[in-house]
């Protein structure tokens, strides 16, 4: 009888221990950083954007959230929902780039941060990735970094791998799906035009995310209301115009700080960095020349869509060895 009770006790103890082990394995949560870029919508380039002089009027293009960075954010948010943890979003750009940070808050980011300074301007991917690496270091703790595969303006797809190299962590480019996150390891499916790969990697690591990864969620209405006032100091005058009841920019600041709505802004001085490695001066690549793509009128011949016209065309192509 006594023995029976002991046995029962030990079984329940066992179950408890199992449960604790189970919980530990599953309460492991993950801190993610997402790097996002605001870009001109180069998909909208049309006649009004190209000037007669053959140059481009970039300001005529709407500024948007780089499309694949939305996929990166979505992947980070889903990981947080499934495993727990936090999502911090960083962007480097002009003050207007605060907009993509608000867009991130509307979708579920916990924290955001803007890197802005004239000294960062004109950066190539080496200088960009160096500055972003320094910002990541300042954030401190992270298990995962998410980037888009490629930005639609610079089109290089270099920043992600270069941030990873500078942090001495592994990278998984072309990530399409997180199959599993367990303990300090991640299993990811990578997607290419002509195939796929499944890799397992120790954390921390950096993922660059492709557009086919997911359908990014829209902004949540509730969060849009919650974060509508989130702003950087440069935006206070505009806020004051819209909400004169604040009376002064100081009052705005006080309110935003109280409600945790002040978007942190970091300049070069806030990061512990080597100024010779940032901006134009820190960029090994230099632009020698830019040509705007204007349609060159090819020497062209009009062919009539008639049996005779087409027959003559085929004869000419054969005569000139283009076909046959």
């Amino acid at each position: 009888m006594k023995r029976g009770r002991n046995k029962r006790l030990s079984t329940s103890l066992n179950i408890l221990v199992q449960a604790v082990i189970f919980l530990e394995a599953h309460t492991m949560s993950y801190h993610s950083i997402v790097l996002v870029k605001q870009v001109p919508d180069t998909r909208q380039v049309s006649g009004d954007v190209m000037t007669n002089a053959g140059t481009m009027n970039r300001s005529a293009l709407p500024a948007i959230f780089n499309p694949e960075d939305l996929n990166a954010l979505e992947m980070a948010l889903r990981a947080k929902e499934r495993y727990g943890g936090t999502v911090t979003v960083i962007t480097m750009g002009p003050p207007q780039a605060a907009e993509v940070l608000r867009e991130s808050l509307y979708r579920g980011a916990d924290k955001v941060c803007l890197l802005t300074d004239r000294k960062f301007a004109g950066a190539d991917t080496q200088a960009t990735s160096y500055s972003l690496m320094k910002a990541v270091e300042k954030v401190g703790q992270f298990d995962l970094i998410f980037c888009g595969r490629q930005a639609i303006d610079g089109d290089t797809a270099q920043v992600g791998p270069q941030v990873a190299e500078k942090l001495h962590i592994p990278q998984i480019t072309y990530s399409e799906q997180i199959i599993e996150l367990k303990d300090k390891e991640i299993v990811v499916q990578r997607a290419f035009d002509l195939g796929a790969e499944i890799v397992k990697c120790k954390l921390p690591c950096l993922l660059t995310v492709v557009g086919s990864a997911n359908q990014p969620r829209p902004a949540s209405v509730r969060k849009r209301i919650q974060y509508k006032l989130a702003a950087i100091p440069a935006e206070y005058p505009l806020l004051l115009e819209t909400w004169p009841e604040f009376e002064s920019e100081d009052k705005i600041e006080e309110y935003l700080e109280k409600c945790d709505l002040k978007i942190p802004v970091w300049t070069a001085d806030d990061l512990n960095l080597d100024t010779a490695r940032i901006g134009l001066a820190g960029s090994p690549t230099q632009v020698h020349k830019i040509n705007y793509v204007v349609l060159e009128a090819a020497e062209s011949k009009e062919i009539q869509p008639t049996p005779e016209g087409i027959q003559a065309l085929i004869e000419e192509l054969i005569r000139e060895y283009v076909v046959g």
Partner: protein
Amino acid sequence: MTKENRNIWIFIEQEDGKLADVGLELLSKGRELAGTLNSQVWALLCGHKVADLARSLIHHGADHVLLVEHPELEIYRTLPYTRVTADLIKKHQPYILLVGASPVGRDLAPRVASAAGVGLTADCTDLQIGDFTIKKENRLCKDLLYQIRPAFGGNIIATIVNPNTRPQMATVREGVMRKSQADTSRKGEVETFTPEFQESDFVLQVLSREMREATVHLKDSPVIVAGGGGVGSQDEFNLLCDLANLMGGEVGASRAAVDAGLISREHQVGQTGTTVRPRLYIAAGISGAIQHRAGMDQSNKIIAINTDPDAPIFQVAHYKIVGDLAEVMPLLIKALREKAK
């Protein structure tokens, strides 16, 4: 003072012991540049049991092959490949390093450039040798690599240089350089290199990898008959296939045709598809959006068929046919069949 060596290195991509075209394309471009610089072309070949490929690289233009064999290099992984490439750069200090802008190349090159602390230009479509003056210092740099690339969604073409860092690194889009015929009389040296890895190079494991052979050979095809959003039905699209067959060519497509489900994505020509430069490109019912033209405007001869006389495609076309493709395609097929008789 010893003169800076001006050797051009080509990263050679291989999978399961089969060479990727892009490396061979770059060897041939490398030869051309080495002629201007009066220097050598070196091929960097990494893998496991790949020594047999070295001869083929020499036949395609390499003067010197750096052969790195190791079981850990069998399947491409970022960190071991970065280690090898960065160590070899440090040892030999090449003047230029070219890498294909394939998924492997675009994973490796930025990592290597960052490790070596050098500039990298992405996805080039042309390379030339030329001079550049650093304005601020009023310093002339002779014989730099002009790295020419589209950016801003294909709307601008930028010429980029790396005046101060070596090697000058660029990734180069697949299919834009022409690979040369193998010349079996060419001679070259093979030098082996033993890599030294660190434990941390192996934090990533490939659990499975499945690559498909490209079933569509747009790049090598002398003729491409491409259809777009103006193709109204599968029957109409089949006319394009018939014409392509008759001409010994391949079928291409704009994204609109792919999105409409008329044909698979492997046939897409353009910025996010394949870049082609056939002898003849026929664009039927394609408007000529910049992203499409980016992949075909270097074709030798272009025939455009479109109902809209103002379609932008006509501005790059050599032969302009304003008309309904449903009527024009059968005429082309008929005329060609009659000629073949």
